[in-house]
Each structure stands twice: as structure tokens, then as C-alpha cells.
């Protein structure tokens, strides 16, 4: 491969005077959010706006034999009651498949169920009224006759011949299967000194964004345009999907995304109730607002994980790992989600298992099955926590079997830092990772030897603490390989337009979106640094398909690496254009001029020559004074997409230090460490906070979060009191360190950091719990690690 120093000729943005790159600066516009003056979708009100409430199925699987809405329609404030058949007039069904996921199948899904419901929570009717309360009142007066059908709930028996098939036209309940076989797995196991097997179980959980999913759809029949206000991570994707299924041109749909109250992958999909809201606005020719309540969120926001993965590892007595093998099973609900599909997570698990390690012997099978439960799809760190927990769990079990320290076995098997570029056993290409440097830094940060000594000392006092280590790789900066090649109209490139306004300030429009990660800040930091203007002069516009370049948005840890590079390249062009005009005004040469602190200066002595505000005044208001033939272009647009590598892999390692109360089964998290390598760091504080937030979501999965279904497919804990999420009192302080290996694919060199925390947190905690329980000979390979599970493993209950 070529490792070209991409355009590092003219100047390096990293070294410019007054650069913001690598500096902690506060995010712009936080006051709006801190003063309660943001604009979330639930805050939006439009003239004539109606409210929609969905009546949802109480059954996991049932035929709808009749809907009587006459009484509801007579209720005060009710505008309409709309069923699945009625809404089908304006919106077509969809099928969540992509061609690169070979064999993936799904059934047509409708905005509102027609004839049959396939999970508890699927919408069966929409009630539109002048207020949400009026719509909720009316919903209670709709009578729906159901004929219950067998519910397929257990993924382990979903493929049994005796289990009913949810979508008979598909033939069976298998949505997707992928097999992978690399190297010589059987020979490697045969040649191993020890082979260890375990089954790893991951609970179904969900995102619990604090702001529920919300949409305001506004069809203007005179303009023939639909404006969708939605807290989405991918506005152009929503534009494409809405237009496609409403029979509109994309130019007839505008998606506006203001403040978003948490996303984490929950808001990167298009949901049936959102589609229904778009359609209702068109049908009723007025703005319609949908805000999910918390029960609806639990029943309809995508769920995630829900895997049972059998794993096997071979190891030599000297600690060398000989092979990995996995057999993963996951249940995705009744439909593959649209438009990203529900096969991506299983596919990622196959891709990522064994990823940090040298061995090339790897066999994997992943099967994805349908169930009558809520839909399952991509949530933060898609597949990573599964792959990491299985891999790192197996590595610890192997170490335990041969009596080797968990750190030592990793040292002996992690890919060497000077071995790149190279490929993983699943064929993923790595440009440059830093597992050993990261592990060494982690060991130092946590003072590993001292912790081991403390652990031994406390064990003697019957206090059981554990240390868990988890190395991981993370998929970031995805190219078209993720979705585009499979036919999804989900852009992998992003665009940035940047212009100098008439007072010498900068307006920047970017196609990446903001959900709190700091997209606005990193864009302003890059633009300010490259151009030579202060950040307070840079205004960033995001989240509006009418007013930004076309692009993917913010998901899969792509904002900084892809959108950031587009910002850098666009600003370089603007800078050149400004210097060309400045040279003409100053009768100088562009090469002799630079822009520093909002002024054009001499390169030679730094002396200010002309302020940008003055330059802009001349260009916009007195162009007649410019030399003949000079046409200033104070706006520039550039797009970027990685081409050389399908994904920019990052790496890292986490450690957990915790105490298990062997009487109560409670786990107390004492400390957590992360070292990760996301390449160039634009804003250290934002990166660290992304990682901390990601870790805590991973800790939630490890200890608390689970959607508990009964055998009839009823979600039994669909509220915040019964579904536990991490609270401040239980969370540890998290120390973060970095190794920096910039990607050479971009001038910026940034990779993503949004999912590193979630990728490895549960694996580190599980390994630490098993380390703590070692004197009892108990091993647990299931999360969440509830007190009940720990006491059961200890034989106490």
C-alpha cells in the first residue's frame, strides 16, 4: 500500500500559529442548552399543528380482525383516526435488506400494521387530535379485535421445524447467516495445549435517549413540500427514505435537525411511527407532531445486542493463541430494520472477534433470526461489545487455564505495533494500530502490580476485588463499504462549505450533525485553525438538508474523521482564495502572505497587512477597486470520503477495578481506565468525554440494562423505574490516556472515538468480576451481571 503524506506540503494545520487543533476549547453555543433555550423537536410548535398518538398492540403476534374507531372519532378534539389500510394510500411499505449482506431477507413492513401485528408495541391505529391529551383520551375508545397467534420469542428455538414461521413467505425464521473460515482452525486446535470453550450471553437492551424520539412533519400542499423536523443523526438519509415512500422527489422533502436529546444510534434509523407521521401530515395537509412517551420508547426504539455466542480458543502452554472459533446467534424482532438492516451487528461480530490478535486461524458462524419482539438494530458500538467480550473473555479463560497473567497473555498475542499495515483474521485491513503501546500505558496508569498486591492483601481479609483487562479494535470513518455498496442511499462522504462574510467572519455549512458530541466545535476548531481566524468568528450550520452540502451525518464515529477533513480541505481552498485577493489588493504575492488572528500578514515578519473585515468590505462592496480580471471567490466547498481503507480502525484497551460483595452479589465499580488511539486529537476534552460517556453506556450493559421479555413476548420492564440505567452514584471515575497514530488517509489524520468506550467496558467488567470470583471457582459469561446472577454462580441462591 501507499503511505502517502497526503498533501502535507503547503502547511500543516497542526503546526499553524494559534491553531485550535489538539486544544481543549469550550464548545460553542452551550449557553443555549444550559439556559433551557435550545430547540428540541418536542419544543417545536407550528400553526395548525395536530398531535398524533399511536394505539399499539398489546399482543406480540396477532391477527387484527377488526378496528372500531367510531366512538373515538366522536371524542372532543379528535381530527381523525387512521388505520394501516388507510395510511397505505400515501405511503408504501419497505423491506430492510441490503445486497452486500448476501442472503439477508425480511418482510414488507408498513407504517401502521395492516391485518397483523408482529410485536407488542407495533402501531395499529393513529389518533390525530388538537392535543396529545385529547388523542390519548380517544385512543382508549378504539376497539380492536385481535386473534392471537403463536409468538416466536426464544431465539434458540426460532429455527426449529416445530416453531411457527413469522413470515410464511420467507420460508423460515432465519434472516441472515454468515460463515467465515480462515487459516487452519481444526489443525490449530489439534495442536493446542489447551482448548477452552464458553457460551457468552448478552441481554437485550436499548438506548434510553433522555429525549424520546420526536417528529414534526409539515406538508405544505401549496408548495408541494414536506418539512420534517426530526432529531436524526442522518438528515439526508431521512430525506431519501421519506421521499421514496411518499412518492415525492427528494427536492420536495426538507429535513431539519435542531437540538437532539441523545442519539447513540437510536436516532439513525427510520421508524414506522415516524414514517406514519410524515404520511399523516400529507394526508391531513397540516403539521403533525409525534413525541414518543417513555413506554413507547421502550417498546419501539430499537433494541440492541441480544446475542448468544459460543466461543472457543486454543492456546499453547507458552501463551500463544492458536485459534478462535465462534458461533453467534442473535434475535432481531420481526423485521430487519430500515434502511440499515438488522444484520450489521452480527456481521460486525464476525468481523471483529480476534481482531487485536496475531493468530490467523479463525472460524465463525453468525445467524440472525426473527422473533415477535421489538425490532433490534444498530446501537452505539455495533457488534463491538459482543466481539470484545467474547474475545477478551476467551483470552482470560485461556490465561486462567495455563496459569498465565492476563496482561502477559495479551503481550504475547497482540499484533506488534510495527507489524502494520496488516489484516485481521476476518480480512479487515489495519493501517496502523498501537495495542502494545496502549497496553503499556494502561498498565502504568493503573499501577497494575500495586493493584494486584492490594487485591491479594484484601483477599486475605475476605474482600474480593478483581481486575479486568480488555483490548479492542473499533470501526471508524466508514467508507461506502458499510452501506453504499449494498444499495442503501446513505452517504459515506461529507461536504463542507465555508465562506467569508462581509464583516470578515466565517460561515460554515457542514453535512455532519450534532447530538452533543461536539461536531460544531470540531468544525469551528478546524476552520479557525486552517484559515487563521478566531473560533468566535466561525459560525457552523448543521442539520438542514436545504442548507448544508450533501452527506452522511454523524454516526459510526465518522464526524471528525470525514466531516472534519472536508472542513479542512474546504478551508484550505478559501484560504488560498483569500490570499489571492489579498495579494492583488496589496500588490504582493500570495506566497508571501498568511492569515493570522483575523488579519492577512506578511509571512516574512508577521506584520499585519490587511484585516479580513477590510478585505471582505472591498470584495463585497468595492470590487470596482480590484485589479481587472480579479473575481474573488470567498466561498469554497469540498467533500471527503476515505478511499484507501474501507474503515479507519482504531484500537484501545480498558481496565476495570471493582469489588464483588459475595453476600449480596452487588458489584461496586471502583475505578476504570481507558487508553485509546483515535489518531489526531482535535479537542482532547471532547474525545475524553466521548469515551467516558461510551464507557458508562457499556457499564450499563454490563451491570444493569436489560429488556426483560416473558415467554409470550411481553416486555415486562418498559419504564425507567424497572429498566435500570447507570446513575451517578454507582459510576466510577474514569481515567483516560491516549496513543496517537494518525491515519495517513487524510491530512487531518483523525479517526473516530465515539464507540471506544462502549466497545470494551462490559468485557473489562466481566473479566474483573471473574477475577474477583476466582477463589470461588465461579465463572460468569453473561451480562448484565445482576446480583442474582452472581449469587447463583457462587451457589448462594
Amino acid at each position, binding site marked *: 500500500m501507499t503511505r502517502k503524506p497526503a498533501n502535507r506540503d503547503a502547511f500543516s494545520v497542526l503546526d499553524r500559529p494559534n491553531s485550535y487543533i489538539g486544544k481543549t476549547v*469550550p*464548545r460553542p453555543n*452551550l*449557553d*443555549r*442548552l*444550559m*439556559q*433551557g*433555550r*435550545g*430547540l*428540541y423537536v*418536542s*419544543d417545536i410548535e407550528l400553526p395548525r399543528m395536530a398531535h398524533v398518538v399511536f394505539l399499539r398492540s398489546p399482543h406480540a403476534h396477532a391477527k387484527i380482525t377488526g378496528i372500531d374507531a367510531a366512538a373515538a372519532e366522536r371524542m372532543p378534539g379528535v381530527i381523525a383516526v387512521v388505520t394501516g389500510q388507510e395510511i397505505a394510500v400515501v405511503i408504501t411499505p419497505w423491506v430492510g435488506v441490503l445486497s452486500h449482506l448476501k442472503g439477508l431477507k425480511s418482510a414488507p413492513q408498513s407504517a401502521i400494521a395492516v391485518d397483523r401485528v408482529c410485536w407488542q408495541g407495533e402501531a395499529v391505529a393513529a389518533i390525530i387530535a388538537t392535543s396529545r*391529551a385529547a388523542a390519548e383520551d380517544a385512543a382508549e375508545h378504539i376497539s380492536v379485535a385481535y386473534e392471537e397467534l403463536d409468538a416466536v420469542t426464544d431465539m434458540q428455538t426460532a429455527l426449529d421445524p416445530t416453531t411457527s414461521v413469522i413470515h410464511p413467505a420467507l420460508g423460515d425464521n432465519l434472516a441472515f447467516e454468515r460463515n467465515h473460515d480462515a487459516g487452519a482452525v481444526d489443525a490449530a486446535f489439534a495442536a493446542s495445549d489447551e482448548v477452552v470453550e464458553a457460551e457468552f450471553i448478552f441481554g437485550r437492551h436499548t*438506548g*434510553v*435517549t*433522555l*429525549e*424520546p424520539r420526536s417528529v414534526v412533519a409539515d406538508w405544505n400542499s401549496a408548495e408541494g413540500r414536506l418539512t420534517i423536523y426530526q432529531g436524526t443523526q442522518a438528515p439526508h438519509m431521512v430525506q431519501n427514505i421519506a421521499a421514496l415512500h411518499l412518492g415525492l422527489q427528494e427536492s420536495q422533502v426538507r429535513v431539519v435537525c435542531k*437540538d*437532539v*436529546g*441523545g*442519539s*447513540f444510534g437510536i436516532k439513525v434509523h427510520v421508524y414506522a411511527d415516524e414514517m406514519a407521521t410524515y404520511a399523516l401530515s400529507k394526508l391531513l395537509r397540516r403539521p403533525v407532531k409525534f413525541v414518543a*412517551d*417513555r413506554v413507547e420508547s421502550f417498546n419501539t426504539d430499537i433494541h440492541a445486542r441480544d446475542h448468544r455466542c459460543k466461543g472457543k480458543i486454543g492456546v499453547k502452554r507458552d501463551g500463544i493463541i492458536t485459534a478462535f472459533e465462534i458461533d453467534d446467534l442473535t434475535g432481531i424482532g420481526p423485521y430487519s430494520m430500515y434502511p440499515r438492516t438488522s444484520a450489521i451487528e452480527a456481521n460486525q461480530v464476525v468481523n471483529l472477534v480476534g481482531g487485536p490478535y496475531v493468530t490467523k486461524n479463525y472460524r465463525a458462524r453468525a445467524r440472525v433470526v426473527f422473533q415477535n419482539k421489538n425490532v433490534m438494530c444498530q446501537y452505539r458500538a455495533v457488534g463491538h461489545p459482543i466481539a470484545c467480550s467474547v474475545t477478551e473473555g476467551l483470552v482470560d479463560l485461556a490465561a486462567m487455564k495455563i496459569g498465565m497473567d492476563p496482561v502477559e497473555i495479551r503481550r504475547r498475542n497482540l499484533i506488534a505495533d510495527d507489524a502494520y499495515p496488516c489484516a485481521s483474521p476476518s480480512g479487515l485491513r489495519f493501517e496502523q494500530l498501537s495495542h502494545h503501546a496502549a497496553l503499556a500505558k494502561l498498565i502504568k496508569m493503573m499501577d497494575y502490580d500495586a493493584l494486584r498486591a492490594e487485591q491479594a492483601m484484601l483477599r486475605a481479609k475476605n474482600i474480593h476485588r478483581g481486575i479486568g483487562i480488555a483490548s479492542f479494535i473499533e470501526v471508524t470513518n466508514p467508507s461506502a463499504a458499510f452501506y453504499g455498496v449494498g444499495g442503501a442511499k446513505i452517504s459515506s462522504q461529507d461536504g463542507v462549505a465555508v465562506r467569508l462574510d462581509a464583516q470578515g467572519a466565517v460561515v460554515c455549512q457542514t453535512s455532519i450533525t450534532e*447530538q*452533543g*458530541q*461536539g461536531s460544531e466545535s470540531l468544525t469551528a476548531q478546524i476552520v479557525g485553525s486552517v484559515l487563521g481566524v478566531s473560533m468566535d468568528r466561525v459560525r457552523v450550520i448543521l442539520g438542514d438538508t436545504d442548507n448544508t452540502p450533501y452527506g452522511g451525518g454523524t454516526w459510526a464515529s465518522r464526524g471528525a474523521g470525514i466531516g472534519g477533513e472536508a472542513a479542512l480541505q474546504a478551508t484550505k481552498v478559501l484560504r488560498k482564495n483569500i490570499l489571492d485577493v489579498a495579494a492583488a489588493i496589496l500588490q504582493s504575492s500570495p506566497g508571501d502572505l498568511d492569515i493570522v488572528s483575523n488579519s492577512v500578514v506578511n509571512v516574512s515578519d508577521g506584520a499585519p497587512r490587511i484585516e479580513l473585515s477590510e478585505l471582505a468590505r472591498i470584495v463585497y462592496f468595492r470590487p470596482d477597486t480590484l485589479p481587472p480580471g480579479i473575481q474573488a471567490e470567498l466561498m469554497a466547498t469540498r467533500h471527503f470520503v476515505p478511499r484507501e481503507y474501507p474503515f479507519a480502525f482504531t484500537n484501545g484497551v480498558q481496565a476495570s477495578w471493582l469489588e464483588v460483595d459475595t453476600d449480596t452479589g452487588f458489584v461496586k465499580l471502583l475505578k476504570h481506565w481507558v487508553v485509546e488511539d483515535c489518531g489526531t486529537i482535535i479537542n482532547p*476534552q*471532547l474525545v475524553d*468525554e466521548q469515551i*467516558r*460517556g*461510551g*464507557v*458508562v*453506556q457499556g457499564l450499563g450493559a454490563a451491570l444493569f440494562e436489560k429488556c426483560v421479555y416473558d415467554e409470550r413476548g411481553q416486555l415486562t420492564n418498559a*419504564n*425507567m*423505574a424497572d429498566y435500570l*440505567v*447507570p*446513575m*451517578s*452514584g*454507582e*459510576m466510577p*471515575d*474514569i481515567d483516560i490516556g491516549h496513543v496517537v497514530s494518525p491515519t495517513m488517509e487524510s491530512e487531518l489524520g483523525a479517526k473516530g472515538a465515539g464507540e471506544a*468506550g462502549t466497545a470494551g467496558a462490559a468485557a473489562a467488567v466481566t473479566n474483573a468480576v471473574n477475577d474477583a470470583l476466582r477463589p470461588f471457582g465461579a465463572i460468569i459469561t453473561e451480562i448484565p451481571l445482576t446480583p442474582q446472577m452472581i449469587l447463583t454462580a457462587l451457589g448462594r441462591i
Partner: protein
Amino acid sequence: MTPVPIFLEVNGERIDTHVLPRLNLADFLREHMKLTGTHVGCEHGVCGACTVRFNGEIVRSCLILAVQAQEGSVETIEGLSDSGEIADLQAAFRDRNALQCGFCTPGMLMAAQDLLQQTPEPDRKKIREHLSGNYCRCTGYQAIIDAIETTARLRAGRAT
């Protein structure tokens, strides 16, 4: 249902209006007063996003009916911001990036200010305990704890 008259004070402004008896305080503030800084996250008193100050004490505005606020005084995030009461706390949140999506932040600031009024110099454990009724899904809490700790220290410094 018939609207009933209520009068109360919201951020120092006298309000004289009619509401349905079933209307909760959060919806009253958001829909009637258009004070949308009070956020609704769970509507059953768990997440803390709707925290406001009522007669000097912090409450979940989703668990109180508007009619229960009769003759009372309600302060929301907009009021605390405009009065400058929590300007230092907000500055500490900004400097420490103690918010990401910002949806929990108004409630978080309300709870933090409540703690700092009761306990001038709380330790980290005390801060974590006091905020346990306010969920944040973005930050992992540490930055929030740091920002409150910093504010407490600065206020204590000013006081001495």
C-alpha cells in the same frame, strides 16, 4: 373537564390563568408558559429532566399537578439563568464540557444548585448521591461531578 382558575408566580412573574385539573406542572410550564427548558424525559418521576424549584425546594414537575402550584412560586431554568443565580455553575459546566446533548442539563443544574445551597462544600461522593435522581446518558457523569465540585470550591473561596 372544565378548566379551573389558578394563580401562581413563575420566575417572579404573576400568572393568572385557567388550566385543566389533570394538567401536570411540567406540561403547564412547557405548553402554557412556553418555558421549554423544563424537559420531559420519562413522565413518571425517575429521570429528573423536569426538575424545577417549587417554593424553594426542587421537585419533579411531572409529578405535580399545575393546580397544586396554586399560590406558589415556581422557578425554572430560564429564571435561574436570567437572575444570574447559577452563572458560575453554568460557566463551570461549559469549561468542563459537563453536557453533551443538553437534555438533562436544566434538571441537572437545578439539582446541583440545590445541593450547593444545602451543602456548601460537598465531596464527590455526596455530589454523586445528590444527582442520582438525575439521569444523564451522554457524559458518564464525571464531568458533571467535576463542574459542581469546582463551583463549590470557587464559591467557598469567595465566601472566605
